């Protein structure tokens, strides 16, 4: 009996949405931010009165602000990277679930 083969691209297993992974990863960023908040809260009360001036005080205030800004900028980058990584993960897994296959069958009537 003759055999025939055809080739197709087939979805092997159903697709799934992995967007929730963004939340799972962002939680860690929130936890780090909470530590930073605690850290800066310790520093905030040291110099009594916002209006105090002086070379040393100004330098420390400037450095504290610069540190805070830098930390915040790192977190912004990390969150953006998380979004990109999870979106890419979603697409790549979806692609992986589709594969090219060849099916060989026998026709019993011929």
């Amino acid at each position, binding site marked *: 009996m003759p*055999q025939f083969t*055809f080739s*197709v691209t*087939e979805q*092997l*297993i159903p697709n799934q949405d992995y967007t929730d*992974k963004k939340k*799972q*990863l962002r939680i*860690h*960023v929130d*936890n*780090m931010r909470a*530590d*930073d908040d*605690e*850290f800066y809260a*310790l*520093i905030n*009360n*040291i*110099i*009594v*009165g916002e209006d*105090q*001036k*002086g*070379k*040393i*005080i100004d*330098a*420390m205030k400037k*450095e504290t602000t610069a*540190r805070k800004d*830098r*930390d915040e900028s*790192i977190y912004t*980058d*990390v969150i953006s*990277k998380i979004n*990109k*990584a*999870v979106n*890419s*993960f979603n697409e*790549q*897994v979806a*692609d*992986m*679930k589709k*594969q*090219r*296959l*060849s*099916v*060989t*069958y*026998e026709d*019993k*009537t011929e």
Partner: protein
Amino acid sequence: MSEDIISGSEFKTRLIDLGYKDLSSEELKFNIRQIYMEENGELLKADIKILKSSDIESDFVKDSGYDGIAVHIDTVEKEEVYVISEGTQDLPDWLYNIKAMLAGQTIKQAQATDVFVQEAKKHFNVDDNVEVNGMSHSLAHNNNTIALLSFNTFDNVYSVNGAQLNYYQLFNTDFRFNDAVKNEFSFNNDDEVYNLSPQDLHDFAMTYYKDKADRIDQVISTDDPLYAVSVVRGFFTLGSITMVDTNPDVPGLRELIADIPDNVIKEFQELAIDFAVASNEGGTNEGVKELIGIDVGAFKDKEGMELAGHIIANYDTMVRALNEKLPPLLDRVQTVTANSNEIFGSLEEAGYITERQKEVTIDHLTRIEKSLIDIENILKDNVNLRDKLNNPFLGAGNEIVTILRLASNLVEIYMSYMEIEKTGILKRLESIKDSHGLQEMLSSMSDGLKSYIGADMIYTSTSTKGEPIKVNISAALRMYQKSIPILEAKSTKISNFEKAIKDELDESYKDEKRKVQDEINQMESSPSSYRFLLSKHGYYPTFNKEIKSIRIHEIFYPLENNDFEEHLEELKKSVESGKLYIEKYRNAIEDLFEEEENVSQLFDLSRRI
């Protein structure tokens, strides 16, 4: 005898302040060591043990409302116990204040103080040779000193802005003092004590207890409202007293209170005694019933129809009781309203309130008084009508009119209260409350370089040119101690994040790949199970066809965009630079002060606590 382990007014006041902070035993120990280091510039080399009154099993202590913390400090060379008794904190404490100090009817909290101290001594396994010091603020001074005078509970008592001893309270509870007073003034019936000259009683009490006076140290703000009140009948101030003007902007209220005639105070005292005696016999509800004639406890746990039923069933009794009790209560209120010009005039003169606040308050107090008189008359008319008709119910029409008239007056009172509040007078009078607190007292305890804000120690730098710079040394040391553990915690969180990236992306991708691979294996090993592929891709008819094999041309790409290396590196760098930043901050603060000011040493010691 060597100096006490905890010495100096500042240290003692800060210790008393700790008692209000609801700290765990471990936090208390840490804070005591921290304050010791800040105040003395060295570590406290001692074993510290803590016992809280809430930890002991004593229904008596619990029911009294007393709260205290016992601290046992053992330096090997010296062993001491400090008992921080808590001042007025909640409603039971306020009710106790009325019963103990205004009415002079109870010393339950002082007895509870003694029970707690004896339990603490047993718990710490200390004998009577170990010095026990009472530390107190507000109501706690009354408790600690009565415990010292009556039960010899303490070797010494140190208090800030204390509620003073009351000779009526001691007369009613210390039988030896009671006998001595009766002998001295020749009378037998206890009630007669209230008719004696308060000044004579005051002087007698001062002499009677003078032997123990040198064991009591007090620091009192001239602006403390309790200091002002201590001028009236009942109170006597025993011990070595240091007066401090904590709010130089105002003169304090003592002169104002001193101007209130003794008979007025006596009237309020009688009211308090009625309340205290009834509460001691039947609880607080009974005390309130004694004042207003209504059993408020009977309303408890009732709502809806049950509550309405209760009111209807007891309506006649309640109206009659209110009618009977309101006039004497109103008399006391009228004592205040009749003197409102003098009272608020003095407050204005002393700078506590503005002229407008005085005028609005006096105007609305007069309106409140008028509404209260109206309420009194409405009740009187209602009861007279009942008596005339000899019927406990006047009919719905009459009762509704009565209720509406009462409600209208209550609304008037509320509106007047709101008008008074709108002037900001209540907020303005807050400064009086602040003068009773520990923080204002600490703020006034500055010593050159050193001062306090809240319970924190402040150093003022004079080494820089221009304005002096104030640095919160307590906060700086906390930063130096606690920031490293915080940064370490952040490091752990970075590691957790790193692991989460691996789990959520890399491992998860491998899992998905495994699932796909499993499906491929399944398809290749059992092709006949996938007959549906024939129809799905149009190979009809399918009944005469049989799938012989399936071959997957599998392609798996490695996961992309999962590289967080650069970001993780940045986060780790932030932790490392944080450590450098703390050191830089420490150096900056040290640079503000001269070497002999030992700021550097404090930083070093702070991490060894």
